[in-house]
C-alpha cells in the first residue's frame, strides 16, 4: 500500500494505491452500500442517506468523532456520491452542510482478476483547526492510519459478501461468526462487588 499525504495551504492532498484481496465487483458493492457506511470507518458515530440532490448523486451524511492526545474533533460531513461506472466513484463534499470548506475524492477500482487495485485520490480542506499545538504531522499520520484501517475493512466485508453469495447460491448454511472480520477482546468478568 502506498499512501501520500501532504498539506498545502490548509488543504490535505491524499493519494493512495492499495491492493485488496477481494473481487472488484464486491469492493464496489461495499463502497456503494451507503446505508451501512458506518461499517467501514470505526470513527463514525452517525450516518444516513439524505434525499438526493439530483443528477444521479447519492447524498450521504456522516459524523466522525476522534481524539488524539487531548485534542478531539467532532466533524460533520455531507457529500454527494456519483457512481460514474462500475469501477469509479466520485465524491464531492457539500460545504454548506459540512465542517469542511471544500473537498472531493475519487475511487478507482481496478479489476486484476485475482485481486483489486484501488486508487484513491482526495483533497479536503477542513473548516476546523485539526491539531493546533502538535501540528499537522499527527493529522497526516492519523489519515494514514485511517486509510489503512479502511482498506482492511473494505477487503474483509467484500470477502464476507462474496462468501454469502456463494453460500446462498449453493444453498448451504450461512457463514457463522467464525468468518468475522475482526473480533472484540472480551473484557474480564467483573469481580463479585459489581454483581
Amino acid at each position: 500500500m502506498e499512501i501520500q499525504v501532504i498539506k498545502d495551504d490548509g488543504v490535505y492532498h491524499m493519494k493512495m494505491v492499495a491492493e485488496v484481496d477481494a473481487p472488484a465487483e464486491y469492493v464496489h458493492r461495499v463502497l456503494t452500500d451507503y446505508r451501512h457506511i458506518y461499517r467501514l470507518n470505526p470513527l463514525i458515530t452517525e450516518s444516513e442517506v439524505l434525499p438526493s440532490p439530483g443528477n444521479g448523486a447519492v447524498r450521504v451524511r456522516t459524523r466522525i468523532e476522534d481524539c488524539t492526545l487531548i485534542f478531539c474533533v467532532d466533524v460533520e460531513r455531507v457529500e454527494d456520491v456519483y457512481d460514474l461506472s462500475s469501477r469509479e466513484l466520485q465524491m464531492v463534499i457539500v460545504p454548506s452542510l459540512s465542517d469542511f470548506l471544500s473537498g472531493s475524492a475519487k475511487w478507482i477500482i481496478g479489476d486484476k482478476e485475482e485481486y483489486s487495485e484501488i486508487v484513491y485520490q482526495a483533497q479536503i480542506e477542513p473548516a476546523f483547526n485539526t491539531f493546533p499545538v502538535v501540528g499537522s504531522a499527527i493529522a497526516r499520520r492519523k489519515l494514514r492510519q485511517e486509510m489503512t484501517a479502511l482498506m482492511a475493512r473494505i477487503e474483509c466485508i467484500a470477502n464476507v459478501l462474496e462468501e454469502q453469495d456463494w453460500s446462498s447460491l449453493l444453498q448451504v448454511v450461512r457463514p457463522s461468526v467464525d468468518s468475522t472480520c475482526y473480533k472484540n477482546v472480551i473484557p474480564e468478568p467483573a469481580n463479585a462487588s459489581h454483581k
Partner: protein
Amino acid sequence: MPAINSHLFVVSAVLVLLQAGCVTPRQISYHRDVVPIIENKCLPCHTAPDGTGYLRSQLNLDSYELIMEGNAYGPVIVPGDSRHSILNMLVEERVDISMRTPHPLTTEEIETLRLWVDQGAKNN
C-alpha cells in the same frame, strides 16, 4: 487582580468537584439490567439459526460472548465507548437502520444500554 483570579480558580475547582460527586451515573449490571432488555426486545429476532434478525445480519444476541463477538462484519460493541458502538448507534437510530423493530426500545432501555457500554460492557 491575581488574587481575584486565584480565588475564582479555587471556587471553580470546588464547584467542579461537587458537580462530579453529584452526577455519578447509576451502575449497570449486565445480568440484572441488560439481559431483560435483550430477552424481551432483541432475542425474538436475533437468535440462531432462523431468527429473522439473525438471518439478515448474522447477529446472534443469545449470550454475552455472542454479543461481544458481533456479526460477520465485525464487533458491534466497543467497551467503554457507546458513541462508536454499532449496537448503540442502531438502537439510538444514529445510523440508517434496516432492522424492523416489532419491539421498540424505550428511552430508558436505550439509556441503560448506553450506560452499560460506557461502563465497559462488563459481564457483571
